């Protein structure tokens, strides 16, 4: 199809869609209304289960089954990435070269790393009490590790991040979430039922029954998943090289410093 024809089609379809959406949005309930049937019920249910963070109660108790699906989506996406970003037949691995990092960057990155990691773990651990939880904290914790890449180099990152261990941990934490679900059935109630553990005291770390456990499983799953995901993409950028590129000379395959913009320079120096 020509560009012109495609543009006409987009205009035609897009204007129809726009008209539909505008007409629908005009019929939406007014902003700030008092009627929130689901919200009212969810808050009451969260308080009854002594979970201070209603969002956590929705995620890991009331609609924990949705979270199981979402976790599986992330798990599947990571597995898909591992499979799709594997080393192809015409590619090989070049070990990353050590890189020089400016001293202020190194100091900043290495001093921030433990703080960021602890923040991530804190956000996971307090998911049932305060805003945050496994999904958010997991991402924070995973990205904290990557400060090693900024502060030192790729080889240093690979030392603190054995990808295979993270892949296994990713799968095991996904399995842990599912096993907690099965435990409900075995205990004679229902799948993912929050009746296995005492509900504890409201607004303490151990409150909410199985909510903290499911939250922790998600936190671990997300952290490991993000680490593996980034590792696969970084591998493609840094280590895995197409055969014909290698034959052309040793330039261009040096992505160790890709993050600080030295890539082009190194390529030229390589000759």
């Amino acid at each position, binding site marked *: *199809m020509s560009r012109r024809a*495609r543009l006409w*089609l*987009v205009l*035609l*379809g*897009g204007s*129809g*869609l726009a008209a*539909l*959406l505008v*007409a*629908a949005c*005009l*019929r*939406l*309930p007014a902003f700030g209304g008092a009627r*929130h*049937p689901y919200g009212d*019920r*969810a808050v009451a*249910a969260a308080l009854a289960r002594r979970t201070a963070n209603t969002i956590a109660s929705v995620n890991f*108790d009331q*609609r*924990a*089954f*949705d979270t*199981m*699906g*979402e976790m*599986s*989506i992330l*798990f*599947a996406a990571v*597995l*898909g990435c*591992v*499979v*799709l970003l*594997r*080393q*192809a037949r*015409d590619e090989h691995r070049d070990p990353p070269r050590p890189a020089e990092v400016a001293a202020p960057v190194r100091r900043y990155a290495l001093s921030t790393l433990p703080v960021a990691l602890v923040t991530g773990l804190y956000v996971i651990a307090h998911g049932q009490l305060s805003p945050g939880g496994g999904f958010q904290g997991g991402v924070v914790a995973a990205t904290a590790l990557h400060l090693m890449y900024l502060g030192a180099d790729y080889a240093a990152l690979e030392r603190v991040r054995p990808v*295979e261990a993270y*892949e*296994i941990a*990713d*799968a*095991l934490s996904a*399995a842990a979430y*599912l096993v907690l*679900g*099965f435990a*409900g*059935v075995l205990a004679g109630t*229902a*799948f*993912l*039922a929050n*009746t296995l553990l005492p509900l504890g005291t409201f607004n303490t770390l151990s409150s909410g029954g199985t909510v903290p456990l499911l939250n922790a499983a998600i936190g671990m799953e997300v952290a490991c998943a993000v680490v593996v995901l980034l590792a696969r993409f970084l591998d493609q950028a840094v280590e895995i090289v197409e055969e014909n590129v290698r034959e052309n000379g040793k330039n261009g395959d040096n992505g160790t410093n890709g993050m600080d913009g030295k890539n082009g320079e190194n390529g030229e120096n390589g000759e």
Partner: protein
Amino acid sequence: MHRLLPLLPAVPLLGAALLVAGGRRLPRPVAETFGCLVAAVTAALAGLLLLHSTPPQAAWVGGWFPKGGESVGIVLVGDGASLGMVTLVSLLTLAALAYSWHYFDEPPRGHTGSFPALLLLFQGGMCGFALAGDLFNAFVFFELMSVVAYALTGYRIDEAKAVQGALGFALVNSLGAYFMLMGIALLYARTGELGMAKIGQGLDAAAAGRGPDALTLAGFVLFLTGLLVKAAAVPFQFWLPDAHAVAPTPVCMLLSGVMVELGVYGVWRVYGLVFSGPGGIPAADATRALVTLGVLTAAVGAVMCWYQRHIKRLLAFSTIAHTGLFLVGVGVLKAQADEGTALYVLAHAGVKAALFACAGMLLDRYGSVDEFSLHGRARELRGVGIMFGVGALALAGLPPFGTGLGKAVSEEAVGGPLTALYIAASALTGAAVLRVAARVFLGLGPRPGEPRDEEREEDETSGSGEEPETRQRLDRIPATMRSVPAVLLVAALAVGAVPGFAHAVGERVDESGAWGVFSAVHWTAAGILLDLLSTALAVAVAGLAVARPRLLAAPGWALPLRRLQSGHVGDYVAWLLVGVALLGALALPGVLG
């Protein structure tokens, strides 16, 4: 028993997680056996629950039973239709795992279990979607099955085409999913509910006798867009042939056999539970929208199917044609049509998966799925040839195959000119497959020459010079690979031939549906005659095409239709937008009135 419903998606998901965790240490046979075992256990559980699905059951996950009619939890629907789909999904996953047993491509280094794990995740996603009684939960599992399907489609990364096909698939389907999510948001804003039945009641209460408004229409159109993209309805269908041409054969079996049909199932479920009330979309408008798209889909699919030489693309277009028929069957909103469509879907899954399995054997044996270059080369594969031919006849609706029964019952229900559509679409797709069988396995007719100039452009999709999916080209076809299509064809035969089976299916579907009860499904003389007519037509057309290729060569008017399948994702997205507007326009009168 209903307490076990959430296990149907959870068991394969757990199996996948364990396979990934232990997969790197396991030898390949152990990983594959484990995958088959998990799929089989799920199938057995689904079958057990299916036997206990009268009356239909509902499961509240986490024990959040409604209090005073209100619940914060997620409901799963365990009726004959949903459990039937789950059983079909599980059995077909088992078939795909058995087909890929030992011979399918070398697993990625250090990730022995990843292919069976992906198939199990796919199974889990599809099971969860089939059971969903909650709109958001349906979306979550819809996304799960989509994400896994993208990865599986691009599995053979050494070929650029595979990555491109998967990318187009991912873009178009993700866009559909976003529309779906917008639709859910609109419906939630109106009703404050997420359960399908509760949203339906909420819409009725909000409309209060005034009928649906623009918001209801937008919710209907946007949610259905996601499902229809998955179901590959015209004009959302472009991703499907590109994806099927490059996806590994076991994946094609699942995509064509059941994932696409789940899109139609979703339309049926959501219309029945959410939009069939007085506050929803009036029946006349829903029928107009669904039947129009269904007729277009069946026509485009059948015509395009006839003009393919790449065997996997040809089968992909025949899936589009049949999905169009399913959409018509669902769209007329009659109990009898539902029953016919259910039988048709069941038998079609077996037949289509068997045909893909046979095409995969050609690919692994000869490194080609090109009808022209394979001319007469597969004479030695007599068993495969017989299965391919039988599959072609079953596709055309030969009694007593289940496809024939489903087609006959649907034809009787839809009546009028739509009967002709059923006959034409099934005859043409059956004829195309028969033509391939006659040329490739029997070497009949003149060897097709080089294409004329105007057909050059399709050389890229000829299907010759493909990489086999096995480690090396097979000298002989292993018994596991051969037995899978045989079993699938026998199952498709059983759907139509086993006395009482069709009746049981019909009863379960009526109980699950919203259109009351139709007396009984059985073979009728008129149905058998129409089936024989479409089969005879298929044989005649295929015979003519093989004997006189020039006579039925692509006419000029078919060329623009083929050019639309350009492989350019931008085109597909443009058509998607047009499709949304078209769907809205077709359902609009009910809102204006």
